[in-house]
């Protein structure tokens, strides 16, 4: 990965300036990508320990696994407190340190400037700062496992009063870590929006933008406007924990038998409103880039323009807009009245429409295409039904009456994991296989790709489908023993072992990907600048890997992003930067 250095700089930069403290959007993109993959793996590791406690509560871990836990388990057994730490940090790491940085920081930083024909991001120094703020927040979160008392253990949603009463300082470090992550996302969002608005190549009008760029633009707007309220709530909870204020602590709170004598007067609902004001837009921040990646891959591999590109663009804009007015469907059971329930129920139903439009447009784009089942295409096509299941199982949760039974059960866990795991992460895997040749000039192996794809797909379904069954039986989430203490959970307890086995085998299924990813950097088949015969600028106008400053000269754009198999053109794709004759 040695970008050639014929760029404007007189002499090549020293190593640390070129790779560590670089302001080149491609280097920052790869930094984000690799760090995010490592965090995804760590989050996965935490989940594997959780599955042990759920499937076999009280049974000691094998020595080699217990050794990983260090002081947290004595002779292989760990209690509910450590399970809660695993649960809270699994959620936080996977969302804030894994998927968002990979989808927005990694792919966004690397691909968007290339796709719009820009030499770099609008504010390179701010771009670098956003990565280092993200890394600081990430390391803070990991560090909190090793302090006395352990990491945060009140869920990734950190609901007070539990989060405020938690005497261990892991929660305080979680809050400080969150402030760093939010600042990083804020800086990134500003950078993306300005770059996409200002640095589009000549001729690249709004409706000629690849759909991936649209999804990153909407994601950036959501990040920009939805994150600050969580930062404010984080400051309030930090004050509650450190300065004994009572923003979220109601008066007359009884804590283990005694009334807590404090000023009180706060409201835990305030935290839930501010948290979920970010919470729901956050899940659209996760899904939109994946939709963008899948759109690029499907268009390229079915050799056919996207069906309904305009409707997809307007749907993603509408999705971004609506995502701000649906948040309280996470709070149906907090004693809200019928007016609020009805309002949020309606907006939640309305917001499901644009996602269905985008999904159907993607499916219809396959119709009549000459489909090549390359490895990225495998992931993209598998994404469609999986995201479909994830989306549709969300509807009963969106309606306040049915949510009464399903709230905080394993049904919810199944719903959002279907959207995030076989949905978003499959999209991101597809993106890695698709843009790897552009980043390194070498292609990832297809055999290892298949070896990674099929077991992961099967394991994902074996893991998450039984969760619906458990959820409908009423097994509630966040139970260290998987519900074995509850009578109503007895008939579905056996699924816990099945899910856990599938989770551990999926870990093995990731080995082909890791070998493939790091191996192909040095031993992958060499390819020229447009191996997939794609039409968008990053393939047609820039060599792979692109040098600093990306393009020999700024390309001009003449046509739409997906001009595949156009009548009377000798090749079945028409690059965007090639003039259209007659």
């Amino acid at each position, binding site marked *: 990965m040695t970008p050639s250095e014929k760029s404007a700089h007189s002499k090549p930069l020293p190593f640390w300036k070129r790779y560590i403290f670089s302001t080149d959007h491609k280097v920052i993109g790869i930094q984000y990508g690799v760090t995010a993959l490592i965090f995804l793996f760590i989050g996965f590791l935490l989940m594997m320990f959780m599955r042990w406690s759920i499937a076999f509560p009280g049974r000691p871990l094998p020595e080699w696994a217990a050794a990983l836990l260090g002081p947290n388990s004595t002779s292989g057994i760990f209690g509910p407190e450590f399970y809660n730490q695993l649960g809270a940090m699994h959620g936080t790491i996977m969302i804030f340190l894994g998927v968002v940085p990979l989808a927005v920081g990694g792919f966004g930083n690397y691909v968007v400037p290339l796709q719009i024909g820009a030499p770099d991001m609008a504010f390179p120094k701010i771009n670098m700062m956003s990565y280092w703020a993200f890394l600081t927040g990430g390391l803070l979160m990991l560090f909190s496992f090793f302090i006395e008392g352990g990491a945060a253990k009140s869920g990734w949603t950190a609901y007070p009063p539990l989060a405020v009463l938690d005497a261990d300082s892991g929660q305080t470090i979680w809050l400080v870590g969150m402030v760093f992550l939010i600042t990083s996302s804020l800086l990134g969002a500003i950078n993306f929006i300005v770059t996409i608005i200002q640095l589009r190549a000549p001729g690249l009008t709004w409706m000629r933008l690849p759909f991936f760029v649209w999804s990153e633009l909407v994601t950036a707007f959501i990040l920009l406007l939805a994150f600050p309220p969580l930062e404010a709530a984080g400051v309030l909870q930090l004050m509650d924990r450190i300065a004994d204020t009572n923003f979220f602590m109601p008066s007359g709170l009884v804590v283990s038998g005694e009334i807590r004598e404090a000023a009180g007067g706060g409201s835990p609902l305030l935290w839930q409103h501010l948290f979920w004001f970010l919470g729901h837009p956050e899940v659209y921040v996760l899904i939109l880039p994946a939709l963008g990646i899948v759109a690029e891959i499907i268009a390229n591999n079915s050799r056919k323009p996207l069906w309904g590109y305009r409707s997809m663009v307007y749907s993603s804009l509408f999705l971004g807009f609506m995502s701000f007015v649906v948040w309280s469907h996470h709070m149906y059971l907090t004693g809200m009245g019928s007016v609020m329930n009805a309002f949020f129920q309606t907006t939640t139903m309305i917001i499901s429409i644009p996602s269905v439009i985008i999904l159907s447009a993607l499916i219809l784009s396959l119709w009549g295409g000459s489909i090549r089942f390359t490895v990225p295409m495998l992931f993209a096509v598998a994404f469609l039904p999986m995201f479909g299941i994830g989306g549709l199982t969300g509807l009963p949760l969106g309606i306040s009456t049915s949510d009464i039974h399903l709230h905080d059960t394993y049904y919810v866990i199944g719903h959002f994991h279907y959207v995030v795991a076989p949905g978003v992460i499959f999209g991101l895997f597809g993106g890695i296989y698709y843009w790897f040749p552009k980043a390194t000039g070498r292609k990832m192996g297809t055999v290892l790709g298949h070896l990674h794809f099929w077991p992961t797909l099967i394991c994902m379904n074996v893991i998450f489908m039984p969760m619906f069954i458990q959820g409908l039986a009423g097994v509630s989430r966040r139970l260290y*023993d998987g519900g074995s203490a509850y009578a109503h959970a007895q008939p579905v307890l056996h699924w816990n072992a099945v899910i856990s086995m599938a989770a551990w085998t999926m870990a093995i299924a990731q080995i082909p990907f890791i070998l493939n990813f790091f191996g192909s950097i040095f031993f992958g088949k060499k390819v020229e600048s447009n191996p997939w015969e794609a039409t968008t600028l990053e393939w047609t106008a820039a060599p792979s890997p692109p040098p600093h400053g990306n393009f020999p000269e700024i390309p001009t754009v003449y046509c739409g992003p997906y001009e595949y198999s156009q009548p009377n053109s000798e090749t079945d794709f028409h690059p965007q930067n090639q003039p259209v004759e007659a």
Partner: protein
Amino acid sequence: MRHLFAICAVSALMAITVQAGTIKGKVSFEGTPPPEKSITEAMKSDPNCAALHANGPEVMTEHYVVGEDGGLKWVFVRITEGLEGQKFDPPKESVLLDQEGCLYKPHVFGIQTGQDLIIRNSDATLHNVHIIPGRDSKNPEMNKGMPFKMDLPPMQFEYPEVPLRFKCDVHRWMFAYCNIVDHPFFDTTDETGSFEIKDVPPGDYTLSFWHKKMQDHPVKVTVPAEGEVEVNFTFTEDMVPSRDR
């Protein structure tokens, strides 16, 4: 060879200069102790606990446990004055607090600051160890769930406190009294009411007898260069708090 010889000499020297005496004695209770209350009734609330005691003797509270010869159990004896300014590093071996048969065993125990405390759950049922420090104590409040047979990682206390109350949020009859002191000179009386504190450097001290219901009672004592000194103490009926009479 020379090193070996030097080491033996030093250790021998150490043995001679350090003189230590022992404090022994017996704590008794004069008069009729207030009747104990039965716990088996309360234990029925948790079938696991009731099962553990199904065919055993009836389980009673252990407030005023008096042996046949009048010896009072669960009295914590320690030196309160006379050790100012001396530092004692914590002993290597750890103290075990077990939860067995839905009861804390031992009911009252002593531990030195910095010494390891291992809390074990030997029952197959859920116990929740809840440490409640005093109003202005610096020890942290702590709440650990122990749902199955397991040990908690060893923990240490930083600040002396007599007593630091342990309770179980799941079983309201379960209590333990952990007495933390910053020196190794303490003991808890057994059924016969006897206690023994060894290796006490010679000097004048105040010994204090603490009982969870009948509070703290200091007694002056002088420990000789070596040999034992006998200190007995008798709790009387009027020391019993009014609500228990």
